[in-house]
């Protein structure tokens, strides 16, 4: 059950992942959150894979995992074969639309045993820039007193399957399930409605977590809040776009031609590894920092021409890295304009390929195809992320 991240990932240890979380808030945030009795997780959409960066002791106890096993994994890890697909979709869409969601869903513990819980998730926004900083998800186990399957319980009695006949008798008696209920039955329930008190519990828990985050972010001077207080700035990408882009493992950047000097607004982890820079060093900068003394200026000029004309181009250009050896490398760079749903060019994507490292293995996808696939994946992500949702 180890996390499969590419070697280009900068966050390969638990401490590093938690580090980004700590950086946002003031000291002792984790200790404060640890004191809360609830089961909850906090995820960071700006890290590739949208992983969990904090898990409460309540969550670890409920699921049976250790902290190291949980930090860095996506919430999907706790779903299983019988988890309702539509509930999974509801959560995915709430994340994409940056809104709260409350849905009952079947999850699995480390032991493999299933359990129903009420999953209540909210986005947490930066107060000054209006973008989603984290998602907070609270989990409240559901006791299963009420079981719902479609329009009525009596229908469950018919059917030759012995399992369902058993369940039917529970339902008819309208009794709470005995504690030693066969866990296998749980998987066959289509739905498990949470009680009012369970829903209240989840709302309380969410409120508690949010107030701790708010307090500690205020101390750190970068307030977060549960509501978006200002429109997201033009240079901020939506978290859903960032999550989509985070799935792409190759080196690439997005630049915004509508902002002065066409700065980088997104850089993949692989780009940072290739060039040796840190993310905060490249965001907001024009790509020219990669060029140097021996970079062919006529190539640069031609690139600029293509960009002005809104045409894709591929060039081979000498770049200067910030890696330890400060080496230069030949960058097979492909640039293309990318439109959003209104049909206008929203970004340019630049996909880098180190020319000396081309795979000549016959079993692999051609490097050129891989490079173009990045462009395609970016196009899909950008086009969809800009559609207004109601």
């Amino acid at each position, binding site marked *: 059950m180890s996390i499969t991240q590419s070697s280009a990932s900068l966050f390969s240890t638990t401490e590093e992942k938690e580090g980004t979380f700590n950086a946002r808030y003031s000291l002792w945030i984790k200790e404060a959150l640890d004191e809360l009795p609830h089961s909850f997780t906090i995820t960071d959409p700006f890290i590739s894979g949208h992983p969990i960066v904090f898990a409460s002791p309540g969550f670890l106890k409920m699921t049976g995992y250790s902290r190291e096993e949980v930090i860095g994994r996506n919430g999907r*890890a706790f779903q299983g074969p019988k988890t309702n697909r539509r509930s999974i979709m509801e959560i995915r869409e709430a994340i994409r639309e940056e809104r709260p969601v409350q849905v009952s869903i079947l999850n699995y513990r480390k032991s493999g045993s299933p359990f129903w819980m009420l999953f209540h998730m909210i986005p947490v926004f930066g107060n000054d820039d209006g973008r989603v900083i984290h998602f907070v998800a609270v989990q409240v186990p559901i006791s299963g007193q009420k079981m719902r399957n479609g329009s009525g319980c009596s229908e469950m009695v018919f059917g030759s399957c012995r399992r369902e006949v058993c369940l039917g008798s529970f339902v008819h008696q309208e009794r709470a399930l005995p504690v030693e209920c066969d866990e296998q039955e749980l998987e066959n329930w289509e739905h498990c409605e949470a009680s009012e008190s369970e829903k209240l519990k989840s709302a309380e828990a969410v409120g508690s977590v949010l107030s701790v985050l708010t307090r500690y972010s205020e101390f750190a001077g970068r307030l977060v809040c549960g509501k978006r207080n200002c429109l997201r700035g033009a240079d901020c990408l939506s978290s859903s776009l960032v999550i989509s882009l985070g799935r*792409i493992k190759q080196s690439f950047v997005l630049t915004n031609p509508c902002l002065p000097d066409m700065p980088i607004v997104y850089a993949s982890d692989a780009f940072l590894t290739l060039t040796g820079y840190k993310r905060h060093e490249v965001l907001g900068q024009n790509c020219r920092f990669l060029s140097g003394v021996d970079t062919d200026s006529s190539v640069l000029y031609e690139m600029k*021409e293509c960009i002005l004309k809104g045409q894709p181009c591929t060039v081979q250009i000498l770049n200067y890295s910030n890696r330890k050896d400060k080496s230069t490398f030949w960058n097979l760079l492909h640039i293309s304009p990318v439109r959003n749903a209104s049909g206008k060019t929203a970004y340019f994507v630049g996909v880098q390929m180190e020319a000396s490292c081309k795979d000549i293995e016959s079993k692999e*996808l051609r490097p*050129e195809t891989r490079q173009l*696939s*990045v462009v*395609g994946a970016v196009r899909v992500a950008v*086009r969809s992320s800009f559609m207004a949702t109601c």
Partner: protein
Amino acid sequence: MEGNGLLGSHSFSVIFPGVRLSAITAIIYGPSRGVSSHVNIVRRKGCCLIESNPSPHGGRGALPSEGGSPSDLLFLAGGGVPTVVSNHQKDEASDGSVGGCGRNCLRACCVNRARLPLYVCKKVEDSGEKAREPPVAFLESLVLGEWEDRYQRGLFRYDLTACVTKVIPGKYGFIAQLNEGRHLKRPTEFRVDKVLQSFDGSKFNFTKVSQEELLFQFEAGEDSEARFFPCMPLVAENSPSVVAINVSPIEYGHVLLIPRVLDCLPQRMDHKSMLLALHMASESKNPYFRVGYNSLGAFATINHLHFQAYYLAMPFPLEKASSKEMMITTDNGVKISELLSYPMRGLLFEGGNSMQDLSDTVSDACVCLQNNNVPFNVLISDCGRRIFLMPQCYAEKQALGEVSPEVFESQVNPAVWEISGHMVLKRKEDYEGATEEKACRLLSDASLSEERFKEVNALIFEAIVNQEEELEGTKVHQQKTSSSVNQRSNRSHGGPGTECLVLQ
């Protein structure tokens, strides 16, 4: 796709002497033609700078003659607006010419020259996502990479990313796109009242497409690992299946999956093809890559077996519809539900002890509909885990003049994507005036009535049960008789909403 990367460690100006970089819109590491000629071709096609929305490419010659009398009600004169899915679709039919048609197609004249990547998917299903964060998966890279390559080469009739798109306000979230280039103004090529029609080699089919429109071969494999071969010839004896671009794309990555292309199968669902389609959805590992199918009579445009697929990183309204499980228990674990609160009636298939089980059950249902001449559409969603089966009767209503007038005027045919909630509109006024009500009207016009839907469901369930019994070799005469009696009486008395079948 042969050819090596030409830019080794040489400086750019050495490889392209005398060619200005600004003249090169893309560098193609493509087939055997020289690089310079590619530059010229690319420059002439000049892709990606579109002023109008979108500017269609020029036509390619006269239409082939069609069979049947134009006055026949069964042909949709003016109402149906089919699309061109291949660049040679409108060309003069030039069948019978064996001596090289010069178009690099897939018929006997040119097929020996065909070389395509081959992707063989793994046999053993993924046992769940577990903790693994999937990298951009292999099939996804192949589809996206090859598609982007054709996109930059200008093989599509228009730039779809220039087509403005929005979500229609309302509770369903229908998606509307203004696309003036997608449709042609001409009637469909074959009759729309019969779901099963024989293959007609004289009409356009996918052996006539140019090889450059093909992206790769795709097969269901036998190993526990997927395999990839960058360059394989197409061998007729192997009955290869291919993935091709749709030159009139709705969205990015719009492709056609053509099972056993050289076998020239008509548009008719079969178990093997359905499984292949499921594999493609599953191997993409991306829930936003859906695969769809239109039967004849449900707005398939070409009578040559094919599925469609594309990427859209949003949910379809159909996928969000709630459903209620139906009281049919299957032995292979497949769960069948009927849709609730969606403007069109339909069934949802999910679960199953294996992908094969799910595939077989849905195929049984489709075959039953085909045999009963009920047109239908299929949407394969959620990486092949959820399959929607939507029987429809729009064409029949259209022929009888029973379709709501403004729906008819906008000339939107309810094929699988429209039924899923993605409406492609060809006129600006339709796009500006698109409302949820109109979209719902289109779907409810296409929908079977409640009574007819129940009848059709009964047929489907009977077919599924019979198939299972055949497979298992159990003889349950007595029970079968009694359940058939129940069905018949239910049908005549308009019995309870759901059938109750008892299986051993």
